[in-house]
């Protein structure tokens, strides 16, 4: 990864010198090596630039704000394969000014979930470095080496393809590694098979953790309304913690419904949730339903229809055998 990061830096320098770009949207090193964060690098200052196993954050949504001003020149955005799907969506929905952006596709071999490492009992991490597929964890209690592949983000384990969309240039993308381990609908299917009260219990136990930080909404490339229902003071649910079970359910049903048919399954919502709620299971349910009921269409499922669509009663028939 370090090698790739260096190569990307060189590439950025080259593009800057050629006058193609004026700024860079990338990841900045954090304090500990596992907390890199999105950052805009200006004036060619790339001192804290990093692209490591913890660059999981999708940068595409920052482009809404960053591409607004025509006078600022082009901004370079670094996109992993799954990041480009959201980027393409933002472009398709005219949320970004594509002409002010230079999109560079970069290789990805899977990103690491620090929470998984912490959960495995490693404490007091002070520094993390990488050597090929090994992560070297320096902790207050000594050094430890772990295999990167054992701690990948959930979204990487179901990575559906390393296909890039809507990029201006692809850079070293043949270095992509395969990370998919299981089918992305597996967990949804498991849940579908439960009885109604088991499903209810499951979702209750998950959703009651929600603190309504709105991170899942803010990070989502499909959630890009200028004014969201959840910012509307008249809605009774705006900008406040959920008052009870109902409001928790309401927030999550509506959040998932509003991206239904447009969700690109980038997995960002689950990744950012500080409470580790598996939000992707809601979105994927919609994706699965749409696939089963309407097949693969180019257009977002809720923006179109056919006269032969199934009746809503399919829901009852389908679930008849598991009460």
């Amino acid at each position, binding site marked *: 990864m370090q090698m790739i990061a260096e190569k990307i830096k060189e590439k950025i320098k080259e593009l800057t010198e050629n006058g193609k770009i004026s700024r860079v949207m990338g990841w900045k090193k954090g304090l500990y090596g596992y907390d890199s964060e999105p950052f805009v690098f200006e004036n060619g200052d790339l001192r804290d630039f990093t692209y490591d196993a913890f660059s999981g954050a999708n940068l595409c949504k920052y482009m809404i704000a960053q591409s607004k001003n025509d006078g600022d020149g082009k901004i370079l955005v670094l996109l992993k394969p799954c990041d480009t799907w959201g980027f393409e969506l933002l472009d398709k929905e005219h949320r970004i000014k594509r002409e002010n952006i230079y999109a560079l596709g970069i290789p990805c071999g899977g990103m690491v979930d620090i929470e998984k490492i912490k959960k495995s009992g490693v404490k007091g991490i002070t520094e993390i470095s990488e050597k090929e597929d090994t992560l070297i964890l320096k902790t207050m209690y000594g050094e430890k080496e772990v295999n990167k592949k054992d701690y990948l983000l959930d979204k990487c384990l179901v990575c559906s393809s390393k296909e890039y969309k809507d990029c201006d240039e692809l850079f070293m993308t043949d270095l992509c590694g395969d990370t998919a381990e299981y089918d992305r609908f597996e967990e949804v299917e498991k849940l579908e098979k439960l009885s109604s009260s088991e499903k209810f*219990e499951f979702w209750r136990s998950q959703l009651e953790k929600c603190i309504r930080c709105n991170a899942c909404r803010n990070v989502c490339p499909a959630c890009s309304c200028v004014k969201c229902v959840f910012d509307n003071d008249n809605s009774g649910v705006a900008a406040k913690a959920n008052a*009870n079970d109902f409001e928790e359910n309401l927030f999550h*049903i509506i959040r998932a419904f509003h991206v239904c048919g447009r969700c690109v399954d980038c997995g960002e919502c689950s990744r950012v949730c500080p409470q580790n709620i598996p939000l992707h299971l809601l979105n994927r349910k919609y994706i699965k339903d749409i696939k089963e009921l309407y097949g693969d269409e180019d257009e977002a499922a809720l923006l179109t229809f056919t006269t032969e669509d199934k009746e809503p009663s399919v829901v009852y028939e389908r679930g008849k055998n598991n009460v």
Partner: protein
Amino acid sequence: MQTDRGVTAEKEFQPKIIAFCCNWCSYAGADLAGSGRLSYSADVKIIRVPCSCRINPMFILRAFQKGADGVILAGCHPGDCHYSTGNYFTRRRMTLLFSMLDYMGIEKERTRVEWISAAEGAKFSATMNEFAGEIKKLGRSKRLGDLRCR
């Protein structure tokens, strides 16, 4: 419960049912049921909407929040929408929404979509009676609702 005759009887559960009816077909269907003297359950409260497609998932959830035990949407038959295509969108939206409610463990029998034309007064009353009966069997909606609104 103590009644004035001094007999102790279980208070019967009276479900609250919200029926969103489109102005052009189902609402007129309800009218026809009325003028034809066909009765339908008094538990059904009708809310008239311009088109079934006006109904946003928020409306349905809100109804449950405020104490509804069942929500039914009634609109023109597919192909007959006053605005040409509104109900086709309703059909997709509600299919996906109901499927999600089911996935989250909320009884799927509590929500329903029916197509009832302005000429189908009898269908209106039969559908509402049947739906009300089913909700009565299911009892109070406990999984989706706000206790403070009871």
